[in-house]
């Protein structure tokens, strides 16, 4: 594959004796939109946390831009271009919308560029521009998801990881969020998307991986997965 951005090899993660990931391998090329689907408890969030550095793998390899990530602490991975929008969004409820976005630019030092980035996010999410001085905790779920995504974009990610961006949102808002994900992807940001809504995710992505109880059971082009019997049965309710 040309220009591999991320390569995961036989990654194992355990929490207190329970093996959450039993050795998964996956690759993501520069500019791809890849989705990781699977049911609750399959290990999707664990995978993202391990990539972001919030969890430490028991064994396996993580290569990002041809360098091992294993000994790089979570907070430095952001500066390397890896950004995670966590499950439940992780917004700072007692900070204003604008302060949340500025936290996204924490690793960037160029003030003028940060100001320009802010305006770019407000153009992408006009709703946030209206609410820039409001405390983020007072926003609706969909607006909070926008804050979380805009905040992640403020760090200029090379690899953007999204954990369940559609969770708990009204259908109209889900549509809007997915539209934005496609826009971000078109701009060249590599995306790893974790979703329970397999259909939406596979429609948006180029490739997909299916995770079941800590192991990858299927992978391939998103369109193929969407048409496969196994995926249809397990995740699409056909």
């Amino acid at each position, binding site marked *: 594959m040309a220009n591999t951005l991320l390569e995961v090899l036989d990654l194992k993660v355990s929490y207190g004796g329970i093996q959450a990931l039993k050795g998964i391998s996956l690759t993501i090329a520069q500019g791809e939109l890849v989705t990781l689907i699977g049911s609750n408890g399959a290990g999707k969030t664990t995978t993202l946390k391990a990539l972001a550095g919030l969890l430490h793998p028991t064994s396996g390899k993580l290569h990002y831009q041809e360098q091992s990530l294993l000994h790089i602490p979570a907070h430095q991975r*952001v500066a390397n271009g890896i950004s*995670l929008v966590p499950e439940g969004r992780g917004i700072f409820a007692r900070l204003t919308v604008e302060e949340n976005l500025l936290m996204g630019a924490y690793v960037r030092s160029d003030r003028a560029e940060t100001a320009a980035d802010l305006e770019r996010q407000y153009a992408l999410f006009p709703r946030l521009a209206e609410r820039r001085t409001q405390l983020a905790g007072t926003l609706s779920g969909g607006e909070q998801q926008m804050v979380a995504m805009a905040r992640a974009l403020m760090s200029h990610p090379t690899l953007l990881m999204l954990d369940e961006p559609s969770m708990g949102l009204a259908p109209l808002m889900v549509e809007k969020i997915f539209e934005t994900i496609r826009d971000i992807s078109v701009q060249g940001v590599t995306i790893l998307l974790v979703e329970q809504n397999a259909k939406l995710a596979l429609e948006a992505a180029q490739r997909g991986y299916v995770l079941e109880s800590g192991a990858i059971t299927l992978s391939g082009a998103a369109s193929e997965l969407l048409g496969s019997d196994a995926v249809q049965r397990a995740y699409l309710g056909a």
Partner: protein
Amino acid sequence: MEIFFQQIINGLVQGSVYALVALGYTMVYGILGLINFAHGEVVMIGAMVALAALQALLAAAIAPVLAVLLSLMAAVAVCMALGYGIERIAYRPLRNAPRLAPLITAIGVSIVLQNLAMMIWGREYHSFTLPFTNDSHHLGGAVMNDVQIVIVIVALLIMAGLMWLVHHTRTGRAMRAVAENPAAATLMGVDINRVISVTFMLGSALAAIAGFMVSANYGIVHYYMGFMLGLKAFTAAVLGGIGNLRGAMVGGVLLGLIESLGAGYIGDLTGGFLGSHYQDVFAFFVLIAVLVFRPSGLLGEKLAERA
């Protein structure tokens, strides 16, 4: 009425000191959920170092104003290093331990610091006199001296500066983010350990300044002085709502006023049965009342249930 004004002045002065110390408690609690019971001892170390430095500088014939400023800076520097060291050595290894472990450790650190101070400076009271005259000013029957005026003004300036730092700088924003959601802050690229160290150092710098102030006001330092002061500042932080910066300031000033008005009138109220040496009772009466009737404090949010 003169007593009333006098007690208001005394309360404001003492309350300013409580507020500065309470800020240290509340900042650390806000970020770590830890009551740093060694914080009062940091105030005491600040006072001791300031005194030692002041005496040495004056003995070396340094100009008085310069000597006072340098000794204050020495106290701040030593306390910042101490605060950093306490967190690094005593609390960081217990970051993920059950909540009781760091609490007991805090009490341990406090005992260690007290004994260390006793070994270095002895058990006796030392007099702390500033190398200038301390003029008194009459304000409608009440008296306020230069030192007291400076204490209130400096405390106000420092609190304004701290609020500015917390609300308008990148570091302050990171502090608030870590306090609210450490994992999410890490995902923004914030080095949590660094933010925690900065918080301890800031709180300790305020403690050093408060130590200097209280010594200059009362003219006395002692290895045990941090205990009661720390406990009262903690009460002030709880009164305002622990974890809340504005609460610590309001709580500090309010506690100073309650204490001094209480001490001023307790004799009259009890027909001379209890005297002003019962002053300390008020702080703990306030603490109990707050814990019973409003555990989240005056400005605090509702406490989340913790498992």
